[in-house]
């Protein structure tokens, strides 16, 4: 087997793999709710109502050609004219794709090629075009190729593998999607933007050393307030220190494992923090029976308290008759406005008429 023949033989599985990969990625994007008719790649050149059918047609064509390339590669099925038709179709597909990308680059320079769905969001560049041209040439090279047989020797197999690897490297260099994929693999969302449910924060707090130390001051397993700012969630429990009403404020850093926890014990009457000495003196050796022996029940109570500001719709949902969407919205709206008014009154920002 000459090197040229090896190169031609490698193109069949390579083209099939590229087509199947592109089809799968496109299908995943197309079938995602709300994204199907948003348009990706050359489909954005068409009216919105045609984008979804076009994207699905592209997927079907790519899948059909990939399967056709695989099935007609050997001598058992479809050797001869069927194989030539499939390979010619593949060549035409990449030729049309190249032309469409050139058109896309001129009319919508901001749009990605959409070749591999969500991974292909980078604007069409010379690399993208070169890859499409390379694949068209690869498809052209398969025309007239004899049926593929298993390699006769280990040397021939090695030769094929080397050719395949070299071509994969070339395609990788020409693919902006590789960089995008690597970025996504290593991407970690900043904690300020990461959504972490409040119940998970409370659960993490209950496992913390700070909780074990200060839970003795807590008089109720249900937090009186829970809110979040940036990377911190604040959980406030009512309690008592040396007979005075207190609030134990836990600030929990929003990370999944072993979050940092800061604590303050505040006098409920004055709003001033207790001195560490007073807190130490008021901390019992064992946790008080504030429901702490039942973590799961506490978590449920905590979750209910977290839903406190929206307690009305939650309560309504628990009644036998299901509330209408309008009543839930109305209840939420009323509660929200009441909270805002109280907030502003307390901050002295609003004087009621």
């Amino acid at each position, binding site marked *: 087997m000459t090197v040229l023949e090896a190169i031609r033989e490698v193109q069949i599985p390579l083209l099939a793999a590229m087509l199947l990969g592109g089809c799968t990625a496109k299908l995943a994007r197309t079938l995602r709710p709300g994204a199907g008719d948003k348009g990706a790649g050359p489909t954005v050149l068409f009216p919105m109502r045609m984008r979804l059918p076009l994207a699905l047609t592209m997927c079907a064509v790519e899948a059909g050609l990939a399967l056709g390339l695989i099935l007609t590669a050997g001598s058992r099925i479809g050797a001869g004219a069927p194989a030539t038709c499939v390979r010619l179709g593949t060549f035409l597909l990449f030729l049309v794709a190249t032309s469409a990308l050139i058109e896309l680059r001129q009319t919508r320079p901001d749009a990605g090629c959409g070749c591999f769905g969500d991974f292909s969001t980078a604007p069409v560049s010379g690399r993208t075009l070169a890859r499409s041209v390379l694949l068209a040439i690869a498809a052209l090279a398969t025309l007239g190729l004899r049926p593929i047989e298993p390699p006769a020797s280990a040397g021939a197999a090695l030769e094929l593998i080397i050719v395949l690897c070299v071509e994969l490297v070339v395609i990788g260099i020409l693919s902006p999607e590789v960089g995008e994929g690597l970025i996504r693999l290593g991407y970690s969302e900043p904690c300020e933007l990461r959504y972490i449910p409040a119940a998970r924060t409370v659960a993490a707090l209950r496992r913390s050393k700070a909780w074990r130390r200060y839970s003795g001051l807590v008089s109720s397993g249900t937090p009186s307030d829970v809110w979040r700012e940036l990377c911190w969630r604040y959980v406030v429990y009512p309690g008592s220190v040396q007979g005075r009403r207190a609030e134990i404020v836990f600030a929990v850093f929003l990370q999944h494992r072993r979050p940092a926890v800061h604590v303050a014990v505040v006098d409920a009457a004055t709003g001033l923090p207790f001195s560490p000495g007073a807190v130490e003196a008021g901390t019992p050796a064992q946790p008080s029976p504030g429901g702490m022996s039942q973590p799961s029940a506490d978590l449920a109570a905590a979750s209910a308290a977290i839903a406190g*500001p929206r307690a009305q719709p939650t309560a309504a949902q628990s009644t036998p008759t299901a509330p209408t969407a309008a009543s839930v919205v109305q209840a939420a709206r009323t509660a929200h406005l009441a909270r805002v008014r109280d907030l502003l009154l307390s901050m002295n920002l609003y004087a009621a008429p």
Partner: protein
Amino acid sequence: MPSGPAGYACCDRCATLTGPAEAGARQGLTAGDMVAGPSAAVARRRVLKAAVFAPRSGQDASWSTRPQQNGHRQPGEPADTSHERATFADPGRLPRTVFGIIQDVSPHVLVLGEGPREQRFTLTPNAVAWRGAQLEPAALHQGDRAVVRLTPSGRQVADRIWANIGRVTGVILERSGGTLVVDEGATRAPQVVRLQPRSVGRIQVRFPTLEPGYLVDIIGLRTGTELIGMIPATSQPGYPAGRLPEPPLISGHVPDSISGSATWHEPRDEPPGVLGVAYPALDPGTGCAEDMAGARPGSSRMPYLALGSVLRVRNDCTDTDCLVPVTGCATIARLFNDRCVTCGTSPRGRVADLTMASFIALGGELERGCFNATITIGA
């Protein structure tokens, strides 16, 4: 009667935002009284947050299970803003706002009132009014609902009047000729916008697709429940509201200050004169009424905050700033990936949806719709 006291300008109240305990003390309330209900607890959050992160001399290290190392704060930890408090704006620096019905107006005096009560304001020689267009204050009509900007130097001196101004921002539900029905969010009633015939061309330059599903933001004159649309407040995003572009991936930590566009909204159910800001990214776990009603996710990523969080909002065009509490969620504002071009082009879309009073206090002109702003979180 003006619907709020003339003295509740932005920074002269915000300057006391070091905690509601102080505000409560002024009102004769104890902190215990203030935590009587969950709503008051929202206002108490700043006190409790300050208690957690306030530096304590001789503090037992065990107060924090993971003390800060080398003096560096954790990502997202509230900044020590003591130096910022020291440079708070002069209370007499920013204009204040009053709302009311025009009882009488002359070139020199404006009388606002409601029922038997009325309040008089002296107009400065260069005072201007807006009622669909710039005009002399004397040209305003009796019965117009006015938003009046008072000068910082005088409590009864006005230099700017907006009459019957309104704004509708949302998603078009229906269109029938020149009339639009606009969805402003799940917790607000749909709004009817009737495009003024002579303004249709101007509006369509900025909003070429006035079709259901597309976003619209129009300023005009309010007549009862309708808005006569006259001015496009921004340029229409090219996408329908249901097909928002994917938000970009953000790496590293979000900066404390974010620049973008600050807009304003009509009070609707809120009391007029509220000094607050609707923020586009309230924590979904805190029960934002809009989020509960199934609001759409936004196209931009903003750090999560809660009701009662305080932002420092700076008008980049006038270089004025003040602290403003978060009083609502801006679920419609987060759909807009537009830019404010009042002074240069804002680097991103809407970062704050201010109440009218806050917008005016920060030097915004209502008919312009927005100003370039920088918000600082954790102030």
